[in-house]
């Protein structure tokens, strides 16, 4: 029988939520790595039993964990993330040059084909890859050596590479997003990169339509139509129909177009979900109502999904990696909040229940569809 596993990274450990295909009754396991910040936990599409986890603390720095049995047992693998060559400076908050320094891994993206290959998005922004199940890591330095990199400035959360998308139709094509540099695409398996930010407008930039400097929060795609991208930017929900060459705003009637995460329905490429947040200063839902918004027209026209979600006095945030969908026929949609709730919908957002309510602040949510 099919099932779903939801991997949850929190401020103080990781949790694994499991259910059968009905997704009505959930088992909660954890905490794993109690007390550690779990920025991201993600399973391999090629082997769901293989899971990678990024754990860190201010005391002990970065550790990468790997499971080969679906999260029952874990083993630490290599944590040596060294920038290739002698990294030059990027631009610090005050505009001065600042040396590139590794701080943590924000995002782990396992290969679509090989359980032993996994990409890591780091702060300070760089893309690393392991081809041996995390036993060693090497940088793909072309991104950090892009001619614009010296001008990249950190967002409030740091100069983090937080989004990695692998194109299912073209194994040489990758997308990444960096706060606050913007989105980039490689068409040669990560050797060279180009900024793909045309059409983005950011009022905090002296040149609002600059080639780089945009605070992209997350990008999502439908696997059957990978050239169409949807983006939640700092402000603005955006869409590209040509692999990022040009973007247009599709915020439409959203109550706020600020937010962090965005999802695309696995079977309906024009169905998109966003999680509006009031503003960049007020990281909670507008009007204290926790609403997921769905568009079935690829943006512009949005409808609130509220059944089962708190519609008063709710002031939590939903972070950029804290939502995910499973791929069952009627897909499940999941998201976690900074208040420690993980909400799930077994009917693609129509109705919601809190799978668990009192976890530490949720950093990441990743759903695995199990055969």
């Amino acid at each position, binding site marked *: 029988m099919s099932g779903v596993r939801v991997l949850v990274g929190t401020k103080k450990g990781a949790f694994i939520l499991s259910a059968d295909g009905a997704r009505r009754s959930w088992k909660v396991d954890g905490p794993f790595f109690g007390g550690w910040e779990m920025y991201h936990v993600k399973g391999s599409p090629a082997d769901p039993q293989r899971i990678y986890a990024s754990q860190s603390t201010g*005391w*002990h720095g*970065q550790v990468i964990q790997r499971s080969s049995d679906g999260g029952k047992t874990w083993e630490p693998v290599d944590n040596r993330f060294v920038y290739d060559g002698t990294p030059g400076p990027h631009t610090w908050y005050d505009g001065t040059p600042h040396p590139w320094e590794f701080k943590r891994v924000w995002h782990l993206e396992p290969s679509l084909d090989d359980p032993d290959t996994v990409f890591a998005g780091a702060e300070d922004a760089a893309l690393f890859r392991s081809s041996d199940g995390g036993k060693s890591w090497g940088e793909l330095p072309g991104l950090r050596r892009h001619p614009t990199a010296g001008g990249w400035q950190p967002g409030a959360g740091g100069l983090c590479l937080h989004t990695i998308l692998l194109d299912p139709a073209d194994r040489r094509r990758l997308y990444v997003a960096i706060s606050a540099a913007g989105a980039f695409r490689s068409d040669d398996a990560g050797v060279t990169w180009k900024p793909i930010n045309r059409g983005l407008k950011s009022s905090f930039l002296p040149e609002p339509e600059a080639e780089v400097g945009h605070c992209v929060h997350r990008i999502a795609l439908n696997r059957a139509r990978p050239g169409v991208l949807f983006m939640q930017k700092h402000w603005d929900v955006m869409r590209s129909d040509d692999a990022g060459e040009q973007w247009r705003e599709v915020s439409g009637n959203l109550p706020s177009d600020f937010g962090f995460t965005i999802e695309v329905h696995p079977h309906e490429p024009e169905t998109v979900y966003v999680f509006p947040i009031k503003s960049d200063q007020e990281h909670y839902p507008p009007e204290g109502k926790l609403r997921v918004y769905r568009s079935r027209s690829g943006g512009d026209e949005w409808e609130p999904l509220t059944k089962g979600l708190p519609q008063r006095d709710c002031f939590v945030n939903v972070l950029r990696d804290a939502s995910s969908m499973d791929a069952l026929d009627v897909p499940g949609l999941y998201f976690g909040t900074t208040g420690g709730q993980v909400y799930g919908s077994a009917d693609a957002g129509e109705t919601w229940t809190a799978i668990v309510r009192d976890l530490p602040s949720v950093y990441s949510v990743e759903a695995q569809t199990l055969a």
Partner: protein
Amino acid sequence: MILVSLPPHLRTLARVEGDVALEVAAPVTQRAVLDALEAAYPMLRGTIRDRVTARRRAFMRFFACRRDYSNAEPDAPLPAEVASGAEPFLVVGAIAGG
């Protein structure tokens, strides 16, 4: 044998209980103890000292015999009590809270 006391997170990571006993050749220095610790428990690499520079991580402290050796020269000999195993070399997480 040298005894090393680890903070709880690192005991969990290294899957040890209580103090860790290590063979360390003389002279017993901070660097020699940490090198031996990381050789015996590779998963601790980078969690006490930076993976590249080998410098103490900012929020780690090294104590022995009721003294703070955090900023001591890494190649200076540790107290005889540590070298003999009578006293542990303490790896401690700095206080961080408020």
